[in-house]
């Protein structure tokens, strides 16, 4: 039943944001810190003033105070009421709305069971672990039969394993209760595990709203592409159209050949794991092969990030840690850099 529609919302960093969330849809707002993700939630909840319109189905909500909007909100800091037991926390929304005690205890039991926190019912929040608090907060937010749930970084404070597990449970629960959910998350992995659609927010603008796979494989702007892990965005000018459906562009002093589909190209993106680095001259054609100098080597757990200066551009390449160790790379070293042609992504003119 509840479909959420934001029209021309402006507040803080948000600029004329339009977003429609379908009934029973789970949508993730993803973007860097300060992009305005939480502001979107606060606008939907009515916790802050804003310009623009918020509609739930055919009802305009702008003049409706938070407690009458019928939304549940899971805050990032959870804010479990410290003076109430777990059961009383979950029951709070039902109590203030004067549900009968039988219904309240039935609902509390049901949710406690669904979230595996039955044995915690008489405890106070202070004595709970992070994951347990998270579960209590989820139960409390959905308890008053809300059909819309807003979640601000619901698993950010948990370790990766617990977070993954809880996200799966949360997804199941939201779908079972047929809740329309909007949640904020700062990284994409995690979002795609649970969301039907993902909205990428950057500097107060929604860059793209699409199903997770579309975001990954068909990012609509360099901002999205950059956010999902393509830090190599090069500004280019076309130089010449080659035969066999290829085009050569100049990106600084780099001449890059890529597939040509008849459109104007002024930016290309190269995923870091599609840049190869070699300390010896690789065999094969010299197409998209360059020489560069290593600027920085950043060893990570299973991969190494290598920054290379190539023809006036700084490229980030991602190598497996083993490969990097084998080559014995050093800062300042001259290396061969190969860009995989088929994995290049290009963008048409962007006026911004």
């Amino acid at each position: 039943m509840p479909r959420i529609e934001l029209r021309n919302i402006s507040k803080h960093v948000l600029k004329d944001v339009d977003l429609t969330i379908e009934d029973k849809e789970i949508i993730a707002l993803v973007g860097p810190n300060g992009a305005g993700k939480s502001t979107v939630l606060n606008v939907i909840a009515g916790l802050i003033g804003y310009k623009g319109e918020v509609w739930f189905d055919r009802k305009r909500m702008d003049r409706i105070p938070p407690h009458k909007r019928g939304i549940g909100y899971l805050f990032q800091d959870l804010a479990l009421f410290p003076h109430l037991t777990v059961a009383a926390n979950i029951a709070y929304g039902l109590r203030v709305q004067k549900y009968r005690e039988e219904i309240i205890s039935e609902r509390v039991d049901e949710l406690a069971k669904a979230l595996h926190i039955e044995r915690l019912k008489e405890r106070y929040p202070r004595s709970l672990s992070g994951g347990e608090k998270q579960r209590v907060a989820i139960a409390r937010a959905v308890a008053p039969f809300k059909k819309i749930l807003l979640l601000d970084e619901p698993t950010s404070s948990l370790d990766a394993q617990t977070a993954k597990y809880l996200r799966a449970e949360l997804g199941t629960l939201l779908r079972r209760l047929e809740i329309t959910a909007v949640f904020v998350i700062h990284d994409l992995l995690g979002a795609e595990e649970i969301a039907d659609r993902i909205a990428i927010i950057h500097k107060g603008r929604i860059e793209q709203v699409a199903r997770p796979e579309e975001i990954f494989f068909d990012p609509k702007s360099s901002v999205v592409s950059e956010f999902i892990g393509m830090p190599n965005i090069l500004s280019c000018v076309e130089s010449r159209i080659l035969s066999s459906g290829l085009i050569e562009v100049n990106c600084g002093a780099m001449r890059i050949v890529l597939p040509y589909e008849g459109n104007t190209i002024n930016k290309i993106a190269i995923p870091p794991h599609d840049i190869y680095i070699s300390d010896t001259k690789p065999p094969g054609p010299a197409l998209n092969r360059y020489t560069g100098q290593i600027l920085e080597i950043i060893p990570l757990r299973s991969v190494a990030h290598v920054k290379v200066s190539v023809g006036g551009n700084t490229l980030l390449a991602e190598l497996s840690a083993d490969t990097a160790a084998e080559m014995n790379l050093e800062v300042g070293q001259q290396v061969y850099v190969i860009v995989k042609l088929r994995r290049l992504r290009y963008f048409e003119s962007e006026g911004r």
Partner: protein
Amino acid sequence: MTFKRLAIAFSICIFLVYAGLILSLFYFYKGSLFFDILRSERTLFSLKLSLMTATATTVISIFFAIPSAYALSRYRFFGRQIIDTILELPMIVSPVALGALVLIFFNTPAGTLIQDRGVQVVFTVYGILLAQFITTVGIATRLIKAAMDEIPSRYEDVAKTLGASPAKAFLTITLPLSKRGIIASSILTWAKALGEFGATITVAGSMAMKTETLPVAIFMRLASADIEGTAVLVLMLIGLGLSVLYGVRMFTNRQPYV
């Protein structure tokens, strides 16, 4: 000497100053006189009057302080800074001056009207209550506000999204969470009201069996050079005040919510 011991030594010094003063009372203390004075109708009246007015003042002050503290803590409104500043009036102006303010007010046309048509305040028990109220309400508000400032307003946001009205969120969340602050504030208000002298004697006078609270009675005894009597009353005031404060502190010092 470790830092810890040094710090403790300072606290012991403070204790010794007070304890020494209290002990010196016993130099003039006469056991027989204690019960005579305690049993005298005039002393009993003062004792009763002090307890009742201090308690009533506490209730009234806290009643006003809670909502105003909440407003000052949570809302941004025109004049908030001015109100916040004026709360310190009782701390910067001496009690006698506060009492004088009240007396002067009741000599204005508005004040005269209130006294003629409404309640007689000057030289009555109402005067005592008013004197104690104005010396305590500002500080009570300040203390409760400090307690409420400590409570994240996030809790109320959560309560609202769970369907609680602002009033309900206040009553079910912020009020219980600021309980300790309110109790602390009540204790201090009560103690300050019990010992209040300057404003009380200025507004309500020092009529025996009518407006003579314990502190006023102490002053009257001292004024008539009755050192033994003074010592007994001071001891009474100290014993009463400290035992009540200590009792309340014990009662409220338990760790909550575990």
